[in-house]
């Protein structure tokens, strides 16, 4: 492991100054559960790590028309704080199955997104929630939709110094149901595939459908074709029966040491279907209204 300097600035301005000083040879560290592994492996060899832990403005939750929370919010907080689990159960669920409790106690939601792993568990629920990310760099702030944030494996729309400061999710509409599902080889695992669904229902008709999947494309992926096939329709068994094939068509998984392309395709189709059913049940506890 290459030796590196470690800095823990108190303000964003100070963090940006440090990053500029190292001229691209420094990396941010949030929880460290990804970057430290990469440094130890020698895959990342920064001259310095700039910690975001001391910067208070990256923490905290504000309720407004929706919820805005700091990027340094711990995954553990997403999992256990009712502020998240009451209104955004799919996000809380994704947090609850991300890695292990020890990891969740230090990993941050901003870090999970900025690392831009296609398998990031926080990404699909935030994609279905159409989260807005506030990015900030020396040049100022900008807002981007999470849909535009991911550019490829490990690549985002942030420049080298920009960071995610806040994440905003709109308040759910009436009759909204959400779900998150994950397939791993064991319970504590990186996702072989994951899926989130968000449905807004009106008299058994789906007014809004947001579906997102992970680990089956270069980026965490919104399934826009499948969404539009569902919106405006009654979700019945016939429609649900077609979803697997539609999902399989829209994703582009790979074979790696964890599983095969074929298995990822099949299991993602199954999970999206199940996530929709689960989301429906959350809109209509008991599910009678739909499956009558």
């Amino acid at each position, binding site marked *: 492991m290459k030796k590196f300097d470690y800095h823990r600035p108190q303000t964003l301005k100070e963090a940006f100054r440090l990053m500029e000083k190292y001229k691209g040879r420094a990396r941010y560290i949030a929880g460290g559960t990804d970057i430290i592994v990469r440094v130890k492996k020698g895959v990342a060899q920064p001259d310095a790590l700039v910690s975001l832990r001391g910067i208070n403005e990256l923490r905290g939750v504000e309720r407004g028309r929706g919820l805005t929370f700091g990027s340094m919010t711990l995954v553990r907080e997403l999992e256990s704080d009712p502020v998240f689990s009451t209104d955004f159960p799919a996000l809380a669920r994704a947090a609850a199955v991300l890695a*292990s409790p020890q990891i969740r106690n230090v990993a941050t939601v901003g870090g999970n997104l900025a690392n831009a792993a296609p398998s990031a568990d926080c990404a699909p629920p935030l994609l279905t929630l159409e989260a807005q990310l506030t990015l900030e760099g020396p040049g100022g702030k900008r807002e981007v939709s999470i849909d535009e944030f991911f550019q490829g494996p490990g690549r985002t729309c942030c420049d080298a110094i920009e960071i995610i400061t806040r994440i905003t999710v709109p308040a759910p509409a009436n009759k909204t149901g959400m779900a998150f599902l994950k*397939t791993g*080889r*064991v*319970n*504590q695992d990186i996702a072989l595939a994951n899926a989130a669904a968000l449905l807004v229902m009106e008299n058994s008709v789906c007014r809004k459908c947001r579906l997102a999947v992970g680990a089956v494309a270069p980026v965490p992926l919104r399934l826009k074709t499948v969404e539009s096939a569902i919106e405006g329709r009654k979700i019945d068994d016939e429609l649900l029966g077609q979803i697997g094939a539609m999902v399989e068509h829209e994703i582009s998984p790979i074979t790696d*040491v*964890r599983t095969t392309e074929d298995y990822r395709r099949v*299991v993602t189709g199954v999970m999206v279907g199940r996530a929709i059913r689960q989301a429906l049940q959350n809109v209509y506890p008991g599910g009678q209204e739909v499956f009558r």
Partner: protein
Amino acid sequence: MSELQFIGKNHSRPDGPDKAAGKALYIHDLVRPGMLYGKIKFSEYAHAAIKHIDTSRAEKLPGVRAVITAYNTPEIRIGFIKDNFALKKDKVRQFRDEVAAVAAVDPETAAEAVDLIEVEYEELPGVFSPDEALRADAPLIHEFDSRGRPKKDNLVPVPWNFTAGDVEKAKQLSAVVVEDDFDTPLVQQSCMGTAGCIAEFDLMNNLLIHTKTQIPFLAQNDFNAALTAMGLKGRSTRVIVPAIGGSFGSGLDTHAYEYIAILLAYTTGKPVKIVFNRHEEFTALSPRQATRTHIIQGCDANGRLTFRDVRMVLDNGAYTSWGATTPSVMMLPISSIYRVPNVFYQTTIVYTNNTYCQAMRGYGNPQAAWAIESNMDQLAEKAGIDPYEFRMINANVPNETTPMGLNITTCGFSDCLQSVARELDWREKRGKGRSRARGVGMASLFHVGGAARVYRSDGTGVIMKLDDFGNVSISSGGIEMGQGFTAALTAATAEALGVSPDRVTVITGDTAICPWDVGTHASRGAFTACNAAILAADKARQKIFELAAEHFMARVSANLERRMKKQQGFQAPNLDAVGNPTASDFDLRQNFVFLKDRPDDPLLRVPLDELLREAHYRQQGTIIVTEAFYDPCHEMLDPKTCRGNISAAYVFGVQGAEVEVDEETGKVTVLKFAAAHDVGKVLNPQTLKGQIYGAIVQGLGYALCEEYKAHRGKNLNPNFLDYKILSAPDVDFPIHVECIETDDRQGPFGAKGVGEPGLVPTAPAIANAVYDAVGVRIKSLPITPEKVLAALRERKNKIAKEAEAAKGGSNVR
């Protein structure tokens, strides 16, 4: 023996608190004065000629104290048939081959220096499966055998074959015959504590090595041979084993890294530490062998087994460890589980350019059980017999010698079968859950339970030492590696001697202090050491009682007199009636020496420590130290016929599961798990169940997810991100464990060995349950969702095709 005081009761483990609190010292924690850090340069090819090694840049790096290769150090041959070398010369045969090593002042410098070593290779064609290696034109992995004779093929010269009865005739006469192929993958021991050692020399060139091993005395032997190879013949080796974070068989051989540390220590004159990181633990240690088994079994019309024919091919990897002897253990169930008169067993062990394999918990038995127990269910189905009934019909019985010459004494097999069937609600559930994709399945095991004579001596020694305070130290050559050895030996010592367990200190892991032991393997640790402790305790009791004959009455009188002075009105009893007791009149229990015929008289007893001091602090005084060497009454296998009673006792066990299969994703979920093991006698219920729970979880990993994946000899998942073992959240179902006590007279207090068996039948039990749930049989481990889903699809297509064919047929008519 009178009523047991401590055996069979829960006692906390003496090693528990320090381990739980992080105070125990593992190899990772140890530092020696002036210590350097060693690091190994491994091969970059699976098979290549070494053309040139340039170490000059590494040598110039500040902080580097030595750079060694096979070209500047003496040749040290290692391994079971000495086909391996500490450092490789001329060619490499696997990715983990050690081509050079450095010692430096810190680990970072050592790692940097290793990267500066440049090795020029010429790649050679490799072979990566036994099939490839057995082809007539396959490249040779070893051009010469260890005696220097040219080799013509890639066979490992360690054949294991066994024949009993007439299998061919039995095939003809059987009512039902089933044959199939079953595969197992490489799996890694996955010890929490990685491997490592610190080697150092004193100024007389004697070697002291702290190392993670299960065989301190065989290791001492190996290291002495290395000293001879280094020109240090006659110098001695002292092996010290620190706390071990799991070993599971990985410590049954000495490893190249240990010899490299020795060479570096000798070269630098400093202690040198080599500790593997997780990546090295995966890539440079030896996993459990991958096997392919072709099995044929038959039974008569009544469901009685008529024959078993097993042909097995093992991928040895590039060199030969003790792991090449695992077929001798596979042979036990193959020849002897269930009563089967005709047996044929043949192994082919093949060199490849894959990582070389070693022992792992169960020592070949899980691979054998996988084939036998899966095939048992196939045979039962074809014979139209419930698999549980089929096993009951064929179960072994007590006091019977098997065709291999294994003398089964106690045998709780049928009780185990019944326990698991009861616990799983077998009659209600078997064959009835298909509509919900739920099923139950079971599988059995047979293993050595009274040590195993795989070496010329299977003995173990203990030294028992009593001090002035009535405390007992027992030093043993056995090793505590997390399995509860210390707890078992503590309870056995306390019980056998007559002291409380808190008076007992167990000393292990130092060849200079502890008496010889062949190694902690074959589930033999508690069985042998506790038997030795009983022998040593008997000797100590005899000596104590002889001292009592001399000093007991004097101490009683003195105590009474003192009490009369202190306590007004106290009347001492008349001791004349007691007379002059002799050694045979005494007993010792709960730290007190007393008269056998007056066990309850509080005035007629003397604390053990008081008696010991009385005997010690006088002119020509004495202290008590005893020793014992226990070697079980069993025999080595005849090398030609492979017959012989290899163990003093045998264990049986049955495990079963209820599972649910997700037919859309192929995922297998365990709903309930039941295990019943014939353990002889429970020494410590908590520790024993802990052993079995742990083994079941390890067995479930083998069943469901563990696989050391490699491409052309290179490991693809050398980390726990991609090598998946089960962890606590995966065990979200009840595990019921029943211990069947058969009280074997060879065992200490009746106990048989329990360390390994808990993972032996786990995988076939799951496979059999999956078959019951969804009607597909997975024949290669692990039973992944991918395989289950593919098998379900295949089955669906087959059914559809058959339906179509039937439909087509009716149209024609």
